[in-house]
């Protein structure tokens, strides 16, 4: 077959000049993009609480939806790669002859329009990354002197990214920009007479067909084997630390690290485009041509270099990497929740906000990890120098026995960097406990941990009822904990000088403690540096979620929803927008 084509080729038609390989592939890829995009558009719903949801639906529930999205996504990558290669080709060729005006300008217009198409498209899925991206783009537009602020408002459809950002970006992405792109490329056909174009196309049809087929096939194969990944739904309160643009914008992203916004986002790109557009004139003599191609190659080279260095920096940025790990866990959890309960009418963002496993770690990373560690939070997001106890498995038996171990108590993982390190507990109580017989210690640990009524210890708590009772007696009698700690009605709150052990670690206890550790029930004026969170940086609902997460009370895998909490929060979610 190949041979025959080749033969025919060499006999009847002039060979397709190699310089046309890229444009033909580009056109083929673009057509794939348009078609797959149209299919996606049929199922996409632009609004702040349906955009992510509809894309999720496309990816997970519509037959062939994921494939369509892959095709659309990867063909975008390919068009941008190809147009870059095309520019490189132009640059190399203009060493000998200056590029012709109209084709060059059309190519440059295509570069700009394709990038704009990609950028607007990136926002539509409305995941965390997309939302942050919209924010940053809005602010970059807003930085233009005088007009900027109003321009930003018109493009974004409001002061903050929201419903109208999505509707406006949809119109740009699905209608206006493609229209402009088609207009620009049709200019190419105006400069040549129609007949020569059709003639040359007809003559080279076999070669064009083969190239198109190869491109489409490659794209199809690639899209079958790789999946695009939708991030977690945008929380719509600001940017996230994983805010990074797609690879083709990394050069600009990196540029903004080094030069002011006006220069990096506007001056350099515009000046480069204008200079490139002037190549037909600059290239009138040999020197000009040499300059022209060196300049163009230099532009592409430095873009690659900038992009790569942005990538390299991110690879070494432990905070960024940790944030990515968190994001991955979020995505998995969101998936699990949706598989269990479906997406509520108020949308996935609202759903995520009411889930302890989604909200808890975030709140912890934001408010607690300056002092506390937790194994769930990747190292890059916690402090290297902890100054409060590690809260992994808070209040379960291992945790309690660790805290009752003098050495561990005084280590940095617990109270080593607080004033309790040499407090009464460490000086008087713990030495006595560490000398205690093993059975006593076990009983005390079981009793204290049982106070928390952790849902995942319910079984062993029930089993060890006797041991726990024994432990309780030890607490109050032999070991004299209740001399300082309040414990049921044994110690008076006014006499107690240490925190309340009644229901130590229960939801109620934990929430009250987080709300106000300085209250007489807890540390009182002995508080070291635990902040009061009540009505401050955390709302009541957030404290509830944080406590539920620390106690591992969530629905689904690895969680233990003991009570109706999880279902309650879920049904609240679905009610929120109902009259």
């Amino acid at each position, binding site marked *: 077959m190949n041979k025959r084509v080749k033969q025919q080729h060499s006999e009847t038609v002039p060979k397709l000049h190699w310089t046309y390989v890229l444009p033909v592939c580009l056109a083929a890829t673009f057509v794939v993009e348009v078609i797959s995009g149209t299919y996606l558009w049929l199922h996409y719903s632009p609004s*702040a*609480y349906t955009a992510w949801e509809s894309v999720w639906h496309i990816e997970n529930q519509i037959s062939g939806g994921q494939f369509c999205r892959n095709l659309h996504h990867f063909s975008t990558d390919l068009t941008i790669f190809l147009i870059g290669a095309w520019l490189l080709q132009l640059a190399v060729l203009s060493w000998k002859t200056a590029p012709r005006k109209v084709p060059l300008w059309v190519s440059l217009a295509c570069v700009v329009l394709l990038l704009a198409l990609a950028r607007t498209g990136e926002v539509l899925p409305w995941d965390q990354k997309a939302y*942050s991206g919209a*924010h*940053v783009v*809005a*602010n*970059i537009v*807003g*930085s233009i*002197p005088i007009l*900027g*602020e*109003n321009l930003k*408002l*018109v493009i*974004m*459809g*409001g*002061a*903050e990214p*929201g*419903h*109208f950002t999505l509707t406006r970006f949809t119109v740009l992405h699905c209608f206006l920009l493609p229209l402009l792109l088609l207009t620009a490329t049709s200019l190419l056909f105006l400069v040549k007479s129609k007949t020569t174009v059709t003639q040359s196309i007809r003559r080279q049809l076999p070669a064009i067909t083969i190239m198109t087929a190869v491109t489409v096939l490659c794209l199809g194969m690639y899209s079958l084997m790789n999946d695009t990944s939708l991030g977690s739904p945008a929380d719509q*309160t*600001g*940017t*996230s*630390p994983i*805010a990074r643009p797609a690879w083709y914008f990394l050069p600009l*992203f990196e540029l*903004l*690290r*080094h030069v*002011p*916004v*006006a220069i990096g986002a506007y001056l350099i790109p515009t000046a480069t485009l204008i200079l490139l557009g002037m190549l037909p004139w600059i290239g009138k003599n040999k020197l000009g041509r040499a300059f022209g191609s060196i300049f163009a190659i230099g532009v592409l080279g430095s873009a690659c270099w900038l992009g790569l260095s942005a990538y390299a920096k991110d690879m070494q940025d432990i*905070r*960024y990497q940790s*944030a990515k790990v968190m994001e991955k866990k979020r995505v998995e959890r969101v998936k699990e929740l949706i598989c269990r309960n479906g997406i509520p009418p108020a949308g996935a963002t609202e759903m995520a906000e009411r889930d302890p496993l989604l909200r808890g770690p975030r709140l912890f990373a*934001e*408010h607690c990890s*300056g*002092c506390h560690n937790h194994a769930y939070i990747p190292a890059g997001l916690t*402090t*290297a*120098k902890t100054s409060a106890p590690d809260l992994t498995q808070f209040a379960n038996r291992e945790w309690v026995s660790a805290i009752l171990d003098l050495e561990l108590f005084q280590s940095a993982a617990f109270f080593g960097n607080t004033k309790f390190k040499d407090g009464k507990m460490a000086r008087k109580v713990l030495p006595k406990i560490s000398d205690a017989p093993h059975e006593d210690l076990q009983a005390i640990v079981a009793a204290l941990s049982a106070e928390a009524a952790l849902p995942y210890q319910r079984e062993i708590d029930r089993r060890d009822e006797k041991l726990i009772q024994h432990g309780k007696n030890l607490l109050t009698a032999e070991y004299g904990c209740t001399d300082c700690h309040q414990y049921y009605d044994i110690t008076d709150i006014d006499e107690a000088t240490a925190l309340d052990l009644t229901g130590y670690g229960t939801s109620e206890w934990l929430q009250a403690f987080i709300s106000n550790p300085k209250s007489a029930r807890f540390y009182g004026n002995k508080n070291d*540096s635990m*902040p*009061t*969170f*009540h*009505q*401050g*940086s955390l*709302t009541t609902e957030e404290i509830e979620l944080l406590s539920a997460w620390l106690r591992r009370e969530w629905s689904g895998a690895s969680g233990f929803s003991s009570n109706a909490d999880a279902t309650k929060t879920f049904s609240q979610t679905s009610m929120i927008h109902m009259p």
Partner: protein
Amino acid sequence: MKSKQADEPQERRGFIGKITGGLVAILALFPFASGLPALLDPIRRKSGSAKWMSIAPFKSLPDDGLPSRFPVIANRQDAWTTYPKKKIGYVFVAKEISGEIKAYSASCPHVGCLVDFDKSTEGFRCPCHNASFAKNGVRTGPENPSPRDLDPLETKVEKGEVWVHFRKYRLGTKEREGIS
């Protein structure tokens, strides 16, 4: 005479042609123009005006003099949706050792990513292009993409509550220009 007669209608035709041409042009522009008010509507409802917001009880501020991040909670309007009591942004508030209250906008003045406060280095850091600021909001480091220091916000304490004058500034510029 004959020639004059022939000329007149031609002239008239030219004139009429111009008028019809103009009318057609206006008619063609009409649909474009009619949509302009809707297109530009966001400019009119530039809302998000600066407001005094109650942030936290005075007592709840940590005593270490370091800033901590607080959400600003208010009703948020997004086109047709009203989100009751939503986070609409963040501020950093610090009770200095001297007892003075300082507040900063949490948006990086570069292009608006949210900055973090790192307790171990006692400084702010922006996760986007790595701008860094000292705990008093002043830029630090030799290469800093931020064109200016963190934007300070006015504060007051009333009835035991810390209030912050929550407002937005144009980002990416040297001068601090309020946009709300």
